[in-house]
């Protein structure tokens, strides 16, 4: 990859993406990941530079479509077993701390 084709990704972009993923990064990490992500994006740009005129876009690498199952009930998990693995449970439900945001 030549330096002039390096895609621009800023430290602010990285901080924003980290926030969306609820990751807390130190300034040093933001610096390091900005460089690493730039390299990844640079690779994508190499691919984008290929001449793909006449090539159909694909949604998936597998040559498969319509993988379906019949609408038939299968056994569920045992509730007590599942809830026993949760950090907290109450009245048959998962208990979580107070939610500050709103439903998306």
């Amino acid at each position, binding site marked *: 990859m030549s330096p002039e084709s390096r895609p621009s990704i800023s430290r602010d972009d990285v901080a924003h993406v980290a926030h969306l993923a609820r990751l807390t990064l130190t300034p040093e990490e933001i610096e390091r990941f900005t460089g690493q992500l730039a390299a990844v994006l640079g690779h994508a740009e190499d691919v984008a530079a290929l001449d793909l005129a006449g090539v159909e876009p694909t*949604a998936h690498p597998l040559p498969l479509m319509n993988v*379906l199952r*019949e609408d*038939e009930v299968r056994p*569920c998990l045992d509730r007590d077993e599942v809830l026993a693995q949760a950090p907290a449970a109450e009245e*048959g*439900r998962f*208990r979580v701390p107070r*939610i500050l945001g709103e439903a*998306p």
Partner: protein
Amino acid sequence: MTADTPGWETVVGLEVHCELRTATKLFCGCPNRFGQEPNTQICPVCTGQPGSLPVLNRMAVEMAMRIGLALHCRIEPSIFHRKNYFYPDMPKDYQVSQYDQPINIDGWLELPSGGRIGIERAHLEEDTGKITHVGGAGRIHDASHSLIDYNRAGVPLVEIVSRPDIRSAAQARDYVAELRSILVATGASDGKMEEGSLRVDANVSVRPRGSTEFGTRAEIKNVNSLRSLVRAIEYEAARQIGVLSDGGRVTLETRHWDEAGGRTTSGRTKEQSEDYRYFPEPDLVPVAPDAAWLGRVEAAMPVLPAARRSRLAQATGAPGEDIAVLVETGLDELVLAAVAAGADARTAVNRATNEVAGALETGTPPPPATFARLVKMETEGALTATQAKTVLADMLRDGGEPEELARQRGFEALASDALADAVSAVIEANPAEWERFKAGEAKVAGFFVGQVMKATRGNADGGAVTAELRRRAGI
């Protein structure tokens, strides 16, 4: 300010989430059943366990296709995306939904009052779990903690997105009512708004009348009935007109409908929160119904409400209001069966709209053929109107055959043959009066009715006797 302040126009687009009536969830074999004990309908797939893989439910795709066909959409090859967010209603931290390649696009719905509302898309997605906020009277910000039931997580939904073609709260109600009838008719939905199997979000904006540009919209959530929908849109439109009239600006935001307070309250602004980092779901392959599959689904499509309304109108000539009620309640089949059996159309419509529709909450409508026999008995005079209503009430309450119920109530003397026999006997015994009746002396009818009543011990229907006399006299 009110929503119909002169000089302003309300613009509404609706997003309707419809839970599909499949046996199982969208991507796993857990039962899709409302009202079960919390967290008893969950498995590794719908709780997002590492290593679990989703497999698409064929019936859910088929129901989505039915909905698309009913809304005149194009059915397209489609793919699924992950919508990423942090909220505990989905254990996976993403919801699988269709994003830029939905299964159904570009259709329309015709309102019973006339006019088409455009449908932008109707796509498949999975429902989320149900969160209960504990403490603070159930309000999210005052709650001490929250409890989650994942039974609903992964239940198949079709989200139907209208174009912003709706121009009033009343039209929005008509749209949802008609959409609900269509969804129920396709068998894809039970249409129960009160159980949340049909949920509506309304995008509301206002603009100066005559303007062709759209104003900034607010998305109203938590609208759980047709009545709330009307109130919420009227409130929100009036609020926005007030803001704009005072020189202010409407904010692009989510607002919540507060049923008790009769108002909408501000939620989050849209700019901050709409970064869902959509990307194609790598665990699911595209779904592209081929012509054969599409053909099978198309061939199995039921007659839809609009066609049923025109069919019923043609068969009965009943007023539009009655037609709408009968089709919406699914009682049109009863009336059609009665008319086909030779019963009087007006009588059939009356019994269905008054007695049967009125008892839907408490009773079970009779099968169409049984209803038809009852109306035919009334039409032929075997039962008086009052007697027919009594027998019908018995049928709605306990079921049963009209002939048998009539007999039990002592209405049996009124079989149409008996009526005809009684009329014949009276005519034979009174030839002079019969000649006068035939000559057009209408008041002699009273004499004949009296004689027939006497012969049947008062069980005959006066109107039916008169009709029979007129039929025989050819007048």
